[in-house]
């Protein structure tokens, strides 16, 4: 059985009381309970650690090395300046996922930079408690997709999601293989999404465009056709304000994904101009970034949930 550790940093013990518009009304105990329920269903063991002290977190990370199978960390404000934390993460061999409850790219500028991002596998932000569950799933392998049971929703037509990949993704598998991987083609990602969509009783439509205008045309037509959007805008994410406006005007829930950990790459890739109009961002998990985004959108728009 896998053991995953959930670390929460400073002030996260105050969840439910502070800035609820941004963090929501759930307490840390509520969130931990939600993670635990999901982890149990996925046959994963979890441990929880919260501290307001940087040194305590650093020591705990050291202590996890070799003992656990994965760590998800919401380092709170330490994210933005704690090089000690960064070094602690870099010093261990356990995979670490960075999680944020809020979409840090919608907030003050100092929060846009994460000093721990380059030493983490990837980053998930903007999905509240769901972000931890996505992180948990990101640490599992593909065969566990069928462990994501969802109720079939007979009361309405199938939800349909639009998946757009931007310029150069038609070359996936052939270009920059050190970064994007070899052999994984966009078609493979689409097949993977199809499998998950079938399991979740939803539909997914895929497009890849090299032209910014084509993406915008497609987004403009999307509002009445889809229930949500997943977009991997590639390089356009870093400068296209036209794309940003087009996403904003759809009014649909949109999630930004990147195959790679953009914070490990060239500086111009660290900023995304479309993040602020997206619910959240997922980067660094390869094809799984798309799958996690689909999971987040499915969960948000699933109107037939447990307890209904």
């Amino acid at each position: 059985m896998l053991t995953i550790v959930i670390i929460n940093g400073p002030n996260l013990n105050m969840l439910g009381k502070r800035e609820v518009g941004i963090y929501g009304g759930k307490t840390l105990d509520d969130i931990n309970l939600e993670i635990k329920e999901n982890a149990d269903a996925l046959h994963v063991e979890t441990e929880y650690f919260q501290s307001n002290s940087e040194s305590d977190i650093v020591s705990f990370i050291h202590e996890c090395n070799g003992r656990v199978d994965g760590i998800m960390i919401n380092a709170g404000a330490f994210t933005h300046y704690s090089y000690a934390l960064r070094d602690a993460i870099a010093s261990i061999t356990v995979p670490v996922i960075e999680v944020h409850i809020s979409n840090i790219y919608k907030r003050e500028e100092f929060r846009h930079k994460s000093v721990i991002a380059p030493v983490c596998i990837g980053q998930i932000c903007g999905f509240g408690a769901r972000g931890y569950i996505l992180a948990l799933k990101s640490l599992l392998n593909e065969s566990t997709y069928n462990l994501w049971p969802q109720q079939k929703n007979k009361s309405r037509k199938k939800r349909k999601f639009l998946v757009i990949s931007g310029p150069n993704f038609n070359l996936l598998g052939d270009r920059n293989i050190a970064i994007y991987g070899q052999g994984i083609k966009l078609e493979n990602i689409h097949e993977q999404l199809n499998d998950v969509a079938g399991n979740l009783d939803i539909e997914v439509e895929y497009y890849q465009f090299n032209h910014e205008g084509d993406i915008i045309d497609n987004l403009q037509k999307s509002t009445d056709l889809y229930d949500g959007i997943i977009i991997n805008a590639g390089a356009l994410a870093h400068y296209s304000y036209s794309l940003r406006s087009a996403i904003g005007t759809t009014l649909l829930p949109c999630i930004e994904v990147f195959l790679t950990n953009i914070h490990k790459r060239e500086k111009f890739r660290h900023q995304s101009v479309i993040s602020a109009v997206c619910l959240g961002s997922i980067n660094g998990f390869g094809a799984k970034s798309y799958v996690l985004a689909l999971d987040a959108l499915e969960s948000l728009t699933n109107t037939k949930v447990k307890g209904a």
Partner: protein
Amino acid sequence: MNIRWSKIAKNSNDILLASNDGFDSVEMSIDYLVNMSEEEFLFQKNLMREKNIFCETCNCLLPKTVKVAEDGFNIYIWIDYLKKAAIRASGIGCKRFVWSEGLARLLPEDDDSGYANEQVIQFIYMTCELLKHYKIELLIEPLSQKQTNYINNIQEVKQLIDIISKDNFASALSINNLSKIGFEENDFEKFSNIINHIYLDDSKESLTSNYSQIFMKLKKVNYKQLFSLPNSANKKKLEYYKEIFNNL
């Protein structure tokens, strides 16, 4: 559908009182509904069933300190919150959520980019999209400029309805606020198709004659929705309003 009479309820005792006083339904806050434990919710649900009363309306769309237009407002979290609310609300007969809080939609003064405005519109759109699956309408109430700087009159509500383009998005009105939002006499007729909920409250000022006139206009436009009375309203007050309305 005929006119229904509702009152604001804050607890199970209010539900009992409303039922005994002859109200058709109660109006509860979303916050109250969401924060109840499963056991408490089932108790209230059973109580309503037993007393043959339901909760046609839920108010206070978001908790008091939440501002949709603020930087970092987490749409994912709050749509999820409203989903929980909608699941429970639809189980007790709810047909409408009312957004009457000014602070929650206050736009920052320096919203030059219009980004905050976009965020509010997206939130409304996504809320309507969610609620339609539970057959619940979202109603926004125009408020005075003292209360908020966003949606200050019925014309702005209409414009917003056109932007959102959702069948389950309409307006609520407070009779006490009409002059503050510049609501004119012929607006009842002009906007009758979007006014789906009316708050009555004469606890602060005597408006008996005004109510006769207002009810007259509402009858003229064939208003057949809901009148909601404050928490303090009792049987006597309900009969008082009903008498004015029915005798016109």
